[in-house]
């Protein structure tokens, strides 16, 4: 039983995944002057079912910031969320949940900060 539980814990800790590649805008950990839109780019279509933008640093409860997305819950390779109002300076967190094209439940999150003094983002 212990072995079983250990195995479970092990497997659930995360695994080799064919469809886990995704790129975010802003990048995780980035400090940006402004964030007019928040994008999730996937290498395989993803149905984003829940997308939450929170103002607040790690460990904080956070205040939800309203966003709008044209694609809704459609299956897309680029999910765009536009904040209802320009983001005030401060730390932000994004949490999302969805289903990949192969039907698997997926979730992710990242953090960034808005600071008007920040250097303009370099293209990579």
């Amino acid at each position, binding site marked *: 039983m212990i072995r079983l539980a250990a195995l479970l814990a092990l497997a659930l800790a995360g695994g080799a995944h*064919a469809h886990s590649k995704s790129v975010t805008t802003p990048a995780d950990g980035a400090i940006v002057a402004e964030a007019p839109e928040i994008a999730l780019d996937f290498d395989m279509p993803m149905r984003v079912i829940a997308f939450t933008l929170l103002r607040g640093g790690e460990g904080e409860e956070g205040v939800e910031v309203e966003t709008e997305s044209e694609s809704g819950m459609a299956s897309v390779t680029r999910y765009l969320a536009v904040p209802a109002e320009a983001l005030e300076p401060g730390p932000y967190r994004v949490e999302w949940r969805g289903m990949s094209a*192969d039907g698997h439940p997926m979730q992710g999150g990242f953090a960034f900060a808005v600071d008007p003094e920040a250097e303009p983002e370099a293209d990579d």
Partner: protein
Amino acid sequence: MEGLAPLDALTVLAVAAKAAGYAAALLAAGGAIFLALFREADALVLRLARRVAVAAALAGLAVLALRFGIRAARISGLGLDGATDPVMLGFVWQSPLGAAAVWRASGEIAILAVLLPGLVGRIVPLLGALAVAVSYAQVGHTLGEPRWALATLLVLHLLAASYWVGALAPLRRAALAPGGAALLHRFGILAAGLVALLVVAGTGLAWLLSGSPLALVGTAYGWGLLAKVAVVAGLLGLAALNKLRLVPALQQGRPSAARALRRSIAWEGAAVTLILVATAAITTATVPPANL
């Protein structure tokens, strides 16, 4: 992170349901295969095989419905309330799980035909067993490339596994039945070839899915797989013991042979259960924190 606790409970539930689904599928398909291959077995043995196949097919259909709900709940993020959300259920239906469910349900219903007499009662369940195996090639990471190699290996792996799993209960009964030793002997001859196929196909799948042997020690997926392989090795040892020692002892009419063999087959059943749970855990490790 918020919502992680209910998600974890749901993930464990998903693993349990998936393992139960595997067991039902293998027992149902394996029962159909056993009935087709070993028609000469004692009437009591055949009756048990038929009962197991029917019960497993019905359980499989129930688990399938349950898994739809669990999947909907997991993607919804609403906890168990999401299980009956029509929008979420619609998404699951449109996903590969929907296509797989059609194949699997058709196969499990076809396996119920073991209750019918004559040729229909033998051919239809075999087609059902094939459909159940094919259903698993419609979902998961075997959908990736090389598609045909992965699908073929998976179907062969499942058919060989179901031959074995479906025969456990009938063979355990056969150890006590007249003509049982001959039946067990015949099972063992076929099993030797099929187990080789099972191992080769399984290794091929693991190789293609993990990319490189190095990935096996570097990732949770790999460690899970290695744990599964360890239990499989133990199971193969038991099977070899049965084939080389216990079945010959039963053929020679040794008094304690039947009991030892029945105990050994029960252990095989326990090992199979562990393997199915491990497999379900490995393949459900797909709530990956998508490395964002």
